[in-house]
């Protein structure tokens, strides 16, 4: 199995080729990479198959990517998503 490397909030993460970002983060010991819009609660993978939209993460600057479906790619920059992930758009 080929190993690829990506960054999560600046830290190096190893993933097997074909793994989702969510699976790779769980394998690396992380459980959450999003805080909710209303109460700031931590969230990670729940349904694991793209249905619940709980595991949203920012990948290479694009917010709201489902970590459970998005395949990890070499040199990806993955970041914890705060709220809707579009705070930078607010005045």
């Amino acid at each position, binding site marked *: 199995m080929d190993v690829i490397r990506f960054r999560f909030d600046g830290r190096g993460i190893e993933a*097997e*080729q*074909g*793994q*989702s970002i*969510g*699976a*790779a983060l*769980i*394998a690396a010991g992380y*459980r*959450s990479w999003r805080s*909710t*819009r*209303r*109460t700031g*609660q*931590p*969230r*990670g*993978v*729940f*349904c*694991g*198959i*793209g*249905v*619940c*939209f*709980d595991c*949203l993460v920012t990948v290479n600057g*694009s917010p*709201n990517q489902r970590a*459970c*479906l998005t*395949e990890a790619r070499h040199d990806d920059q993955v970041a914890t998503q705060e709220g809707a992930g579009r705070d930078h758009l607010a005045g």
Partner: protein
Amino acid sequence: MTTSPAEPRYDVAVLGAGPAGLAAAVAAASTGSRVALIDSASRPGGQFWRHRAGDDGTRQLHWDTFRALRDALERVEHLAGHTVWHAERTEQGFTLHTVNGGAASEVACRTLIVATGAYDRQLPFPGWTLPGVFTAGGAQALLKGHGVLPGQRIVVAGTGPFLLPVAAGLAEAGARVLGVFEAGTPARFTRHPVTALGKLGEAVGYLRTLRRHRVPYRMRSAVVAAHGEATVRAAGVASLDARWRIVPGSTRTLDCDAVAVGYGFTPQLEIPLQLGCATRLDVDGSLVTRVDGQQRGTVPGVYVAGEACGVGGAGLSLVEGELAGLHAGYTTTDTRLNRRHIDRLLRRRAALRSFAAAMHEAYPVRRGWLGWLAEDTVICRCEEVTASEVRRSIVDLGATDPRAVKLYVRPGMGLCQGRMCGYATSWLTAQHHGRGVRQDDLLGMSSRPIAQPVSLGALSGHADD
């Protein structure tokens, strides 16, 4: 949204590459139809045959069937990685609007076979939004699809036979499974006449695996709370009475780092609902598409197979998929159908459906689960709507159906569009009004004109922003 006057490129488009969709695509292609198989995953198999690249199928069921179907896809155009977000009728058939990564495209077809499967049905409980609490299917998907265990000390809970393969798989992969907590009392099921079908053998095999790993299987018990700050650290497990009310004083705490939970399945009906297909309430309380003996929905040209017309497992899905594929193929190519083979499939369908119905009757959801909720238990995970807010919309604002609840306090308004909370919101509303959940309750939480989020960038032909 263009309506092309040209002849559609495909006679048959199949949505979903699980057991039903694979069987449908291969059967349709066998009649000489031009077939597209559209699926959002990169590899065929659906949830049932979810696998990793190079997987030899050691821990898969009916892997030979999968391999045969996969090999037969040579005659099918497999559009992997394509998600259908909207379907519309055209003069010639249907146009399916899809996205593939950042790129939008349209697929035109004369007939459509919907085989979109199902996902885990959830009953909320305090703490169920903590990271480390997974759906049963999610825990299994991490393992089957990515080779990753969701935790090291795992509690499995819910109702239905699916908990067994989930727990057995996790234990076989090296996790310590602290128990399988089945809310129902399915023991009666083993005496049901249709269990003579032989499917029980699978369950016995899983129970043997659980015994080998010393995993306790407890009936009439449930995870009624998850505890922790940033992640789950413990699960509250309680004994239940026959109505699923917590037996006072029975709750104990199990230290764990993951919980996998599921209470049956919810079929994915976005596409048939967009096209106007009629539905019914199935024995398990799920909203499903109505189909006839040819797997036809009530809208001409739309066939439905697998869980989307009634949750019944992979065996039934294969039969329904083949029926749908053959009939859609015969219709579009005007070939003669093999009556004897069709009759054989129909007999098998009838037997497997009565098995599924007996199974559903053995694993009903009982109303006592509503008592597990605290005031501040989140019902809608997306919009963070609590049980007390839902109740307030019913009691103070006078909502009489879930759609009104949704408009007042927003459960189901988030990105998942009610997929996670639709069932629970329906229960809460129905219970307050002293009735059971009706088809209309679930329908009110199931309408999704855009089945999947699609970026404006993809629609305008530009890369995702």
